């Protein structure tokens, strides 16, 4: 199905998220949509999928004007979208989700749905077991399920918004193969990403948005990477990431920030047994492994948000095995979760209010003027695009992340960061790491989990690899390559690096 977009405009208050966008996507191709965070990619896709209503302009499908006033209408017209966070019912099984979110004309009965699901699974090499409760599926499997559901509904234009975030390498391979097969069948795929290599790998054309406008329309791939970066980021461009300076050597006598003695930590079915390690001051520790291999358990253990089943945990040499989260905070440990809006910041509150909440010395009465001044300072220092009185929920992802960093106490000695740059563009990500490396230089130990090898290799001093409920010893980063890391995550040669021989 050909898609033509003519002068599409969408504003939010004073923000022109999409400004007279005109693009056209030919059937049977994978079209990349590139742009930094906040460029308007997601808005455009949501307009197509009926989750948002356009202010003006029109969309033609195979030359016919299409009415896309809600998701069902878009679906009926043949346009379906796989969201960054799959929208599904966690309490239902995969099959039930597949069935109940589809129109009856597509899947008349549960039996038909089961048959169709099995068939699609086979066709694309997907691994969704029909009766598995949704909560037990990985992010990648939920995405596969959603793609299959849309196909079962007869979608001719498939939109994927940052589909490779949070899925494994194998799932990514399967996804890309499936997308290629779909276009071979005549489907149109719109692939939204900010990852240049993926777009280069997959797409026949690429279109680039910046600040709500089209700055590059249907450019045939391949394109020089530098050219694309320039279009995405304007004159600021994106110079190659600087190789970080080596970690300042910590004095041997210094007390490590964290010491773990034979710790076992468990949550639900997932456990990390018998962990003994010591994390020195002033270093960056990267945690890698397949999604959900226990990295988050360790982060939350170190933050005091999850207590170990067995073993002892020392923080700056003090036993904190059973201490509450607040004791960890008081000792300078901070935890930055992956999902900012869920448990990172309070979306409806402003930066000023957050600064009031986190200020350590305060009396009974709040001093708003003082906090406002602090907020203005933080905004300038961290280059946050907001006023002191903007609710954080209305900031873009990168700005929210910077705001979280701005809220860190100056006395922070241990920082636990889950996915520091997930779904951030290159420039934002680099700015975040600049801040983090400053912290490291001041003696803070940073432990972070990431799925991005480049990030892990570029910024870590030490690496911990998680595989099948086991954890490697601390591996010095300079000796590591992406290829080796990929092997380890997949379990190849893991025994050699496993802590005390297994």
């Amino acid at each position, binding site marked *: 199905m050909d898609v033509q977009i003519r002068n599409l405009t969408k504003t939010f*208050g*004073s*923000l*022109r998220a999409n*400004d007279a966008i005109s693009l056209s996507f030919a059937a049977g191709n994978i079209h990349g949509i590139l742009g*930094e965070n*906040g460029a308007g990619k997601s808005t455009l896709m949501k307009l197509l999928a009926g989750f948002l209503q356009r202010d003006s302009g029109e969309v033609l499908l195979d030359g016919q004007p299409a009415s896309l006033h809600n998701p069902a209408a878009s679906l009926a017209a043949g346009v379906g979208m796989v969201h960054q966070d799959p929208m599904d019912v966690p309490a239902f099984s995969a099959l039930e989700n597949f069935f109940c979110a589809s129109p009856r004309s597509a899947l008349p009965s549960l039996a038909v749905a089961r048959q169709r699901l099995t068939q699609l699974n086979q066709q694309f090499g997907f691994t969704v077991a029909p009766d598995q409760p949704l909560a037990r599926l990985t992010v990648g499997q939920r995405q596969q399920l959603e793609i299959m559901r849309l196909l079962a509904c007869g979608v001719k234009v498939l939109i994927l918004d940052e589909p490779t975030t949070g899925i494994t390498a194998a799932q990514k391979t399967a996804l890309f193969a499936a997308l290629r097969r779909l276009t071979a069948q005549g489907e149109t795929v719109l692939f939204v990403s900010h990852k240049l290599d993926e777009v280069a790998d997959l797409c026949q054309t690429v279109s680039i948005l910046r*600040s*709500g406008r089209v700055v590059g329309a249907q450019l045939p791939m391949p394109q020089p990477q530098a050219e694309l970066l320039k279009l995405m*980021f*304007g004159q*600021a461009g994106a110079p190659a990431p600087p190789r970080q300076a080596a970690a300042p050597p910590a004095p041997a006598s210094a007390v490590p920030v964290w010491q773990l003695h034979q710790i076992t930590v468990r949550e639900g079915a997932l456990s990390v047994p018998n962990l003994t390690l010591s994390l020195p001051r002033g270093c960056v520790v990267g945690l890698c492994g397949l999604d959900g291999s226990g990295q988050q358990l360790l982060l939350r253990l170190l933050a005091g948000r999850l207590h170990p089943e067995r073993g002892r945990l020392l923080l700056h040499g003090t036993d904190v095995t059973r201490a509450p*989260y*607040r004791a960890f*905070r008081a000792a300078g440990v901070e*935890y930055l*979760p992956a999902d900012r809006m*869920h*448990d*990172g*910041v*309070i*979306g*409806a*509150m402003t930066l000023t*209010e*957050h600064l*009031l*909440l*986190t200020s350590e010395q*305060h*009396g*009974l*009465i*709040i001093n708003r003027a003082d906090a406002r001044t602090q907020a203005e300072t933080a*905004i*300038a220092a961290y*280059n946050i*695009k*907001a*006023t002191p009185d*903007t609710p954080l929920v209305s900031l873009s992802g990168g700005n929210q992340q910077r705001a979280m960093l701005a*809220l860190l106490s100056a006395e922070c000695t241990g920082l636990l960061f889950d996915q520091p740059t997930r779904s951030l563009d290159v*420039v934002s990500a680099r*700015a975040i790491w600049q801040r983090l490396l400053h912290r490291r230089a001041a003696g803070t130990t940073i432990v972070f989990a990431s799925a991005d090898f480049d990030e892990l290799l570029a910024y870590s001093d030490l690496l911990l690899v998680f595989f099948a409920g086991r954890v490697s010893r601390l591996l010095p980063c300079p000796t590591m390559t992406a290829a080796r890391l990929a092997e380890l995550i997949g379990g190849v040669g893991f025994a050699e690096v496993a802590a005390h021989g297994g």
Partner: protein
Amino acid sequence: MADKPTTEAVPEALPAPAALRALALPAAHLLTSAGIIIGGTLLFTTLVLLASGTSPLEAYRLILSGAFRNPRTIADLIMLTAPLLLCSAGLTLTFSAGLYNLGIEGQIVIGAVLAMVPLRLLPDLPPPMLWLLALSAGAIGGMLWALLVGVLRLSTNVNEIFAGLGLNFIAIGITLYLVFGPWKRPGVASMSGTEPLPEALWLPTLAGIRLAPLAPIIALIGMGVVWFALTRTHWGLEIRAAGLNLAAAERLGVPAHARLFQSLAGCGALAGLAGALQILAVYHALIPNISSGIGFLALLVVLLVRSNPVWVLPVAILFASFSIGSIQLPLQLGIDSSIAGVLQGTLVLFALIAQGVRGRG
């Protein structure tokens, strides 16, 4: 938005007058909302009134003016507004903490029951001291009852709505037991409640009208304290943070669960105070329906004002005036006075609709 020409790596297309427009928008929204609320409410209640064969204009006139007819009705209005205000202030606290304290009725009731204890045990103390004791006992009773909700919610994860509703039943059960059991009148157990207190123990009223000035004074102080706490103190800010996002507030170092507890305790104390006033200033006895639904009415008030403390007072007065004004309806127009309840409920419903409309736009 930031008009600082600082080191913005990426220019964002934000026109200059954005700040001005940002100011203008809420005013426009406010007008739309007010239109929806008032228009919708009038339409709905007019239909109800027409369906019952009454002149809507006449009914509205009576409801709106009925409470302001003479000093006596104004006194009644104030005496109803006082406990309503206390409960609304309390609920503003719990709403800010993201809690639905539907147990407020029970908290009023237990406040009233505990206020009776010093009045029954120590009737010979000087009245001012007894009043102080009764009010304190009421506040403590309401607070303890509210904390039960908190314990159920935080320790066993029972939703505070169900915990509160359950405790309401228990509180009413306790009252009925006392009124028909240990505290009954000599030889007679009656729905009209316990033996009335000696007149010396009633909160003093102005001559000729049923207005005990102490009641509105206490209510206004309670209201003021809540407003100050929520808008000017760290404690209030932390309560709001816990209410908006418990997990994030905890992460940011706010003792969020403690704040939930404290907001419930504060609300319970204010509700208990209202219960004590019902005893000392209104009914002068413990009656089975001592709360008179004031807690639920306060829920409507707070739903309408969206826990914005500034609006609590006028809306509480408005709601109380509906209740007082509507007494005339059966007498003058032959329609049931519960139309006041319809009016109150419809107002809140349309306020929520308006909010929903605004949320979409």
